[in-house]
């Protein structure tokens, strides 16, 4: 039934009773709490780094001072921690230490000695809150160990747990900034025009001698270390879009200009011209010359870390064979003038999603996943088997079917490699495969599964065989490089 404006004018307005108004206000408050990010981004926090664990805790403002729950700070550091409230008194027992605090008082007793707090102790629902700046005094007495506390950045180091780093710039073209850390790190990486930011939310990374590092290079002129709100950040400034890659079990991060911005590698004789620009890669960095896009390959050594892949034999794990193949393939591709990034260049864990995100961010011309198998002779080449569903919504591409538009290019790449393998009389088969992350990639993507040349699986490790296979893969890609990269 339709109502005209006239009809609407005769509809009596509902009367809001006080009860309804209260309910409405509560509902609105709940809705706002759900919609607004609840201060998650701006929430104050302190991060504690210790040999046992690294953790962050919320910091609350009371009486113009920052407070933190003392029990929460200490609890992860030992087993025997408990607190007891006795009226206005709050008693803390930690290993062999006792401390007593009184609500509203600025003096506490720790191990029988008086300690002055920079503000009054607060007791809220049985939770003892101490001023943040008092941790520098309280914790060494309670824990009996040295601590380093930076109240400004709210980072607290218990014992000698800091992770140090060095940064060195390699001027050999393309320039690379190699950062070596004293312990494995896993920062969150974000890129923005002229800068690559690495946020260390859980790692006790500390500043080098000076927070600003300058390099005598036009592409990567400087890097700045900063720390704030329980996290450290290294911002690398660049005149070209930068990308980071991990190696050495997460102890080394190499930052280099994204390949599309690199100067064209000198192509050996007989190398076809560069591929045309890719119109679909909307947020890809601009190519060095208009209309020209350089070939860039991402090689992915499948499995790694805890994921050993197939147990090819008692001693041979798939993850080791794939890594060896990946390194050889990089060499072969680069020797043919094709820039290459090995996604996993050490024995680290990488999820399928991480592999896809790293690859999509790098906007390669081709992605090659390497697998190894004990069954079947020769090489099998796979392209994505796109799962059902996954409708795209406007500019947003469905994650599980992102490969759809690049499937023709992937098939061209597979055909090129298959032809070259066949030419070398290596048994080859081309199939679809439901293997991630192929279906998540916005580039031509193939998976190469290398089986042994004969009946002995250990022959998979033969350098000559590996070299022959990867050389065929590189030649096959070279043959079709001008047909890759343009989604159809």
């Amino acid at each position: 039934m339709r109502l005209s404006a006239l009809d609407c004018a005769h509809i009596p307005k509902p009367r809001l009773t006080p009860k309804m108004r209260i309910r409405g206000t509560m509902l609105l408050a709940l809705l706002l709490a759900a919609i607004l990010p609840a201060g998650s981004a701006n929430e104050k926090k302190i991060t504690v780094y210790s040999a046992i664990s690294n953790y962050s805790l919320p910091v609350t403002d009371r009486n113009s001072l920052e407070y933190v729950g003392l029990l929460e700070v200490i609890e992860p550091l030992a087993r025997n921690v408990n607190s007891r409230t006795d009226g206005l008194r709050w008693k803390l027992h930690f290993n062999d230490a006792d401390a007593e605090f009184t609500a509203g008082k600025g003096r506490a007793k720790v191990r029988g000695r008086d300690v002055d707090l920079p503000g009054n102790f607060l007791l809220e629902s049985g939770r003892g809150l101490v001023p943040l700046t008092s941790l520098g005094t309280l914790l060494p007495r309670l824990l009996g160990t040295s601590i380093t506390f930076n109240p400004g950045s709210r980072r607290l180091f218990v014992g000698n747990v800091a992770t140090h780093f060095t940064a060195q710039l390699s001027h050999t073209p393309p320039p690379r900034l190699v950062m070596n850390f004293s312990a494995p790190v896993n920062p969150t990486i974000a890129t923005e025009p002229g800068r690559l930011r690495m946020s260390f939310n859980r790692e006790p990374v500390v500043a080098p001698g000076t927070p600003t590092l300058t390099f005598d290079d036009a592409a990567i002129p400087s890097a700045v270390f900063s720390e704030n709100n329980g996290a450290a950040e290294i911002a690398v400034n660049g005149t070209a879009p930068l990308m980071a890659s991990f190696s050495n079990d997460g102890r080394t991060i190499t930052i280099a200009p994204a390949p599309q911005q690199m100067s064209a590698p000198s192509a050996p004789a007989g190398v076809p011209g560069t591929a045309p620009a890719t119109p679909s890669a909307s947020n890809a960095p601009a190519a060095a010359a208009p209309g020209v896009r350089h070939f860039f390959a991402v090689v992915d050594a499948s499995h790694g870390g805890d994921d050993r892949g197939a147990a090819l034999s008692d001693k041979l794990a798939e993850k080791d064979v794939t890594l060896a193949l990946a390194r050889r393939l990089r060499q072969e591709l680069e020797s043919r003038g094709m820039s290459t990034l090995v996604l996993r260049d050490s024995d680290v864990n990488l999820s399928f999603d991480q592999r896809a995100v790293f690859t999509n961010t790098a906007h390669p011309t081709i992605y090659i996943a390497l697998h190894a198998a004990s069954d079947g002779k020769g090489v099998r080449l796979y392209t994505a088997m796109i799962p059902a569903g996954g409708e795209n919504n406007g500019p947003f591409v469905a994650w599980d079917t992102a490969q759809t538009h690049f499937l023709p290019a992937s098939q061209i790449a597979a055909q090129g490699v298959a032809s070259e393998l066949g030419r070398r009389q290596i048994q080859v088969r081309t199939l679809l495969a439901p293997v991630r992350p192929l279906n998540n990639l916005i580039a031509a993507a193939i998976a190469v599964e290398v089986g042994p040349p004969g009946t002995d699986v250990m022959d998979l490790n033969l350098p000559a065989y590996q070299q022959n296979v990867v050389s065929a893969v590189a030649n096959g890609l070279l043959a079709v490089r001008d047909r890759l990269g343009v989604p159809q």
Partner: protein
Amino acid sequence: MIPRQFLISTGVLLLAVLALGFYAGRMRGRASQISPAVANTQPPVAPPVSGPTERVTLYVAFDDPGVLRSQGAEIPLPSARQQRAEELLRTLLAIYLSKNSPHPLALGAEVRAVYLVTPGVAIIDLNSAFANGHRSGVLEEELTVASLIQTLVANIPDILRVKILVDGKERETLAGHADLSDFYDTGAVALLASQLQNAQ
């Protein structure tokens, strides 16, 4: 003084307790002598299906050339759609668990259930022995997936999407390669199956 009848009753009860304890001990000893490996090698209990047989098409994986072959079979099938689906896959598994299996699966591998959810969705629930003991490799795993799904689709009409669970839960991959995190489009599986039916 304690009555005599009470003493006799207590004595008899004590004797009975001792005798039962001895018997239980012997039974436990016998049970422990049965090797768990032997117990695990028992194939899944044959489903109690009887009656007239039907002609079905099974898509059987063969590791040696790495192919999928369709082969006919005459098996008794229940009338209910869901039980038919389960029976089909159990027949397929019996081939894989047989002595001269063309595509050996782990001992104890089983299809726990098949759920046919309208419209057009089938869910295959495998047991953990199936997935945990499956050989790892892209081809080996996709042969298994294609064999299960294609057999189901070839004999049960109107299945458009298939999801594979392990012990009722989602799993990322079958054995490190074949993706189980998403639904399989039966059209795409049919294309894969046709590729797998060619050795080269």
